[in-house]
C-alpha cells in the first residue's frame, strides 16, 4: 500500500548512498590514509592550502566586535580571509580538543580556556577584556524590575544561562554573593539565546552581559546592579599551537590586544582588562 509513495521514499536515500559510496571509493583510491582519524596530521597536511585563511573560535558575546576586527585584519592582510565560529565557549573548547582546525580561541571564561590549555593545545592565554552582567528587561519593563532582588519574586519570569556556560556561572556567582535564590523558568544554552527570550518578551528579565544589552540596539534595556562587580568574567585569548594558519594566529591576537582592538571592544561595552 506504500508502493506509490515508497518508490520515491526509497529512491532518494538510495541515490544518496550511491553518491556517498562513490565519493568514499574516490578518496580511498587517491589517498590510502584517508581513513586515518588523526586530526593533527590532517590539519598539518592541509596547512599549505589554508595558510590564507584564519579561523577564529570566539565566544558568542564577541560576535559583533570580532566580526569588526576580522574585517580590519583582512584589510591589513590582503589575500587573507578570516572565518569565525561563534558559540558557547564550552562548546568551542570541546570542538578544539576534538581536533577542530582553529587558529585562535577567545573564550568568555578562564575555565573554558583551561580545557584547551590543559590539552596543551594553546600557549599561555592573555586576558584581553572583562565583561559585567546586567539585568536585561523588555523596554516596557512589564514586571517593574529595578534590582536583583526583584528577580526572586515568583511572579517575575526570569531566564538565566545554564550553569555549564560562562554567563550562567557568572549569574550564579552574582546571586550567591547577593545571597538571593532565583528560580528561573529556563536555563538557556548560551547568552544570545537568553537575550532572545527577553527580546521576544517571553520573560520579564534575564541576566546577560552588558555588551549583549548594548548589541541588541534598544530591543532590551539594561539595569546595573552592584553585585555584578563581584562576578566579572575575564575573557582570555590565545593562539593555538596547532594553528593551520601559522603566524597569522598570533598576528590576530596582537590586533585584539592593540589599541585598535581595545577601542572596538570598549565601545561595545567591554571593560578593559588591566
Amino acid at each position, binding site marked *: *500500500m*506504500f*508502493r*506509490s*509513495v*515508497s518508490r520515491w521514499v526509497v529512491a532518494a*536515500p*538510495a541515490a544518496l*548512498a*550511491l553518491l*556517498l*559510496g562513490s565519493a*568514499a571509493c574516490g578518496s580511498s583510491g587517491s589517498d590510502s590514509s584517508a581513513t586515518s582519524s588523526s586530526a593533527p596530521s590532517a590539519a598539518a597536511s592541509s596547512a599549505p592550502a589554508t595558510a590564507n585563511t584564519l579561523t577564529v573560535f570566539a565566544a558568542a558575546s564577541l560576535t559583533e566586535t570580532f566580526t569588526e576586527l576580522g574585517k580590519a585584519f583582512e584589510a591589513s592582510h590582503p589575500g587573507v580571509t578570516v572565518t569565525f565560529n561563534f558559540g*558557547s565557549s*564550552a*562548546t568551542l573548547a*570541546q570542538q578544539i580538543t576534538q581536533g577542530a582546525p582553529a587558529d585562535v580561541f577567545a573564550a568568555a571564561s578562564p575555565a573554558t580556556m583551561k580545557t584547551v590549555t590543559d590539552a596543551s593545545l594553546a600557549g599561555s592565554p592573555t586576558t584581553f577584556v572583562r565583561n559585567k552582567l546586567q539585568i536585561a528587561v523588555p523596554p516596557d519593563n512589564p514586571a517593574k524590575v529595578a534590582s536583583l532582588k526583584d528577580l526572586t519574586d515568583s511572579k517575575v*519570569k526570569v*531566564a538565566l544561562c*545554564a550553569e*555549564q*556556560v560562562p554567563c550562567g556561572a557568572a549569574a550564579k556567582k552574582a546571586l550567591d554573593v547577593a545571597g538571593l535564590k532565583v528560580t*528561573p*523558568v*529556563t*536555563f*538557556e*544554552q548560551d547568552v544570545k*539565546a537568553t537575550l*532572545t*527570550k527577553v527580546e*521576544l*518578551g*517571553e520573560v520579564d528579565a534575564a541576566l546577560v552581559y552588558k555588551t549583549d544589552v548594548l548589541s541588541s540596539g534598544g530591543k532590551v534595556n539594561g539595569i546595573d546592579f552592584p553585585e555584578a562587580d563581584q562576578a566579572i568574567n575575564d575573557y582570555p585569548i590565545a593562539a593555538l599551537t596547532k594553528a593551520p594558519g601559522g603566524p597569522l594566529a598570533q598576528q590576530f591576537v596582537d590586533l585584539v590586544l592593540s589599541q585598535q582592538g581595545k577601542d572596538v571592544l570598549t565601545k561595545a561595552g567591554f571593560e578593559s582588562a588591566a
Partner: protein
Amino acid sequence: MAADDVSRRSGLTRAPWVLLAPALLGMAFLVLPLAGLLVRAPWTTLPERLTAPHVLDALRLSLFTATVATAVSLLLGVPLAWLLARVSFPGRSLVRALVTIPLVLPPVVGGVALLLVLGRRGLVGQWLESAFGISLPFTTAGVVVAEAFVAMPFLVISVEGALRAADLRFEEAAATLGASRWTVFRRVTVPLVAPGIVAGAVLCWARALGEFGATITFAGNFPGRTQTMPLAVYLALETDPDSAIVLSLVLLVVSVVILASLRDRWVSAGSAA
C-alpha cells in the same frame, strides 16, 4: 513488504552486489557512529551516572512528552491526511506543501515561529493568556506543542501515502450499502490503512523523542519540567562529554527496544495482512 517476501524466498546470497554493496555501506554509515558511542562510554561509572535523579527525570519527561505529542498528532494528523487524500478542494497541493514545512524548517526557527504565535506576546498566545490564563512557553505542555509541531508531518505523510494507495472500492462499496462518510472512515478506511497509521505514529514518536531545537527554543530548559533527554545531552556536552554519552546511550537503548518490538508486532504483521 513485498521486498521482504522476495528476500525470504531467494535468500540474501542472490541479492545483486550492485544493491548489496551500497546497502551494506549505508548500514555501516548509520551504525558506526553508534559503535563510537559504545566504545567511548565510561562503563565503570555507568551505574551511578544512570541512576542520577536528573537522568531519570529527563527520561521520564522525554517518554511522556513524545507519547502525548504522538497522541495529539494522531488526533489531528489522521483527519488531516484523510482530508488531503480524499477531499479535493482548490489549493490542495499548496496545503500539502505547507503541511510539510516543519520537515524542512530548521527546528530552532520552528521554535521561534511557535513563540511568535503561541508566546505570551504572540498572535494567539496573547489572547490565550488574557482569556484563559494559559501560557505555553516554559511548560511541559509547551514541550508537547514543540514536539508535535516537528513530528506530526511524518505521520501525515505516512498516512496520506497509505490512503492514496488504498483500494477505494471498499469505501465505495460501504457507501453504496448506506454507510455514512464517518462510518466508512471509522469502519473501513482506518482498518484498511492501519499499518500506515502505525508506521507513521512510530516515526512521529521517534522524531518527537529526539526533538531538540524547537523544544529548547519554545519550551526552554528547566530540569524536570522541560528538560528532555536531548536537552540534557546537549548541556552535559558543554562540560562533561562522558555524561552526555551515557545519556545518549539511554535514549538509544530505549528507542531501539521500543521501535524493534513495535515493528515486529505491528508493522510487519500489519503489512502482511
